[in-house]
């Protein structure tokens, strides 16, 4: 091989190799750029949604704090009223009857309340009070037997209330007798009697006197 031809061949191979490298660089870098643009688009959507989340959740903290403060005030009020009216011992027993085990936690504003032994609520209050308490929620609270069922069926509470009405309501007929329609547009028109509203021909008192 002539030296000039060998040089030319080596140069051509070099150019081809460099060209291949450039082609690979272009192909892969363009592909990477395409993927990065997709990533940028996705991140733009994400940033927009996160911005909405931040905007929507901004007042939540203050609102929830206010709600908690209000509820705390309500709890303090009710606890104080319960303890004042029922006494600490009975109040603990009533709460423990409604929420089993709550006596261990005690009242928030009465540090001594957890140390009080909760009495059996059935021994403290009358049966009527227990019935009202049991109707108030679904748990078997304040029952004569704590394991007894609740009086109120939470899923069919309206059925229990329906028992208070007359039998015709309890059997749930498809339709009850409708009230009569009256007036000029009524489907049943009655014949007008002339004697109604007219002066009486004979007074009852006179008829009696005539007979006598």
């Amino acid at each position: 091989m002539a030296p000039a031809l060998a040089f030319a061949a080596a140069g051509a191979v070099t150019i081809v190799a460099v060209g291949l490298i450039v082609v690979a660089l272009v192909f892969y870098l363009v592909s990477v750029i395409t993927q990065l643009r997709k990533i940028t688009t996705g991140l733009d959507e994400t940033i927009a949604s996160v911005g909405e989340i931040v905007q929507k959740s901004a007042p939540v903290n203050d609102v929830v704090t206010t709600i908690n403060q209000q509820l705390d005030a309500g709890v303090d009020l009710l606890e104080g009223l319960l303890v004042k009216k029922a006494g600490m011992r009975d109040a603990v027993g009533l709460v423990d009857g409604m929420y089993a085990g709550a006596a261990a936690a005690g009242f928030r504003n009465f540090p001594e309340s957890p140390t009080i032994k909760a009495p059996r609520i059935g021994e403290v209050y009358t049966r009527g009070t227990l019935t009202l308490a049991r109707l108030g929620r679904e748990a078997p609270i304040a029952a004569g037997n704590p394991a007894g069922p609740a009086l109120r069926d939470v899923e069919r509470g309206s059925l229990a209330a329906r028992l208070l009405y007359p039998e015709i309501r309890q059997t749930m007929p498809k339709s009850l007798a409708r009230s009569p329609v009256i007036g000029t547009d009524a489907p049943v028109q009655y014949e007008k009697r002339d004697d109604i509203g007219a002066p009486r021909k004979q007074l009852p008192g006179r008829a009696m006197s005539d007979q006598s």
Partner: protein
Amino acid sequence: MILWWIGDLVLLAVVLPVVVYLLRGVLDAAKMIVPSVQEIARAAAAGSKDLDAAALLLTTQDQVTKTVAGVANYGGSLDVILDDAR
């Protein structure tokens, strides 16, 4: 002259595969990021939609305030009606 050929050989046999290998790794990594970013965008959009009800907290706040005020009124009445514990 021989060194030139050796250089060409190294260029084709070593440099080019290494370049392709590295670039392909970068491309694969970029492709793996795309679905994750899209999933994050969907989750963020869903989270934003879930927070649409957060505005109702203002109504809840108002209702709680009214309820507690009503309870306070009833409590005051009960305090008057019922005797205190012994």
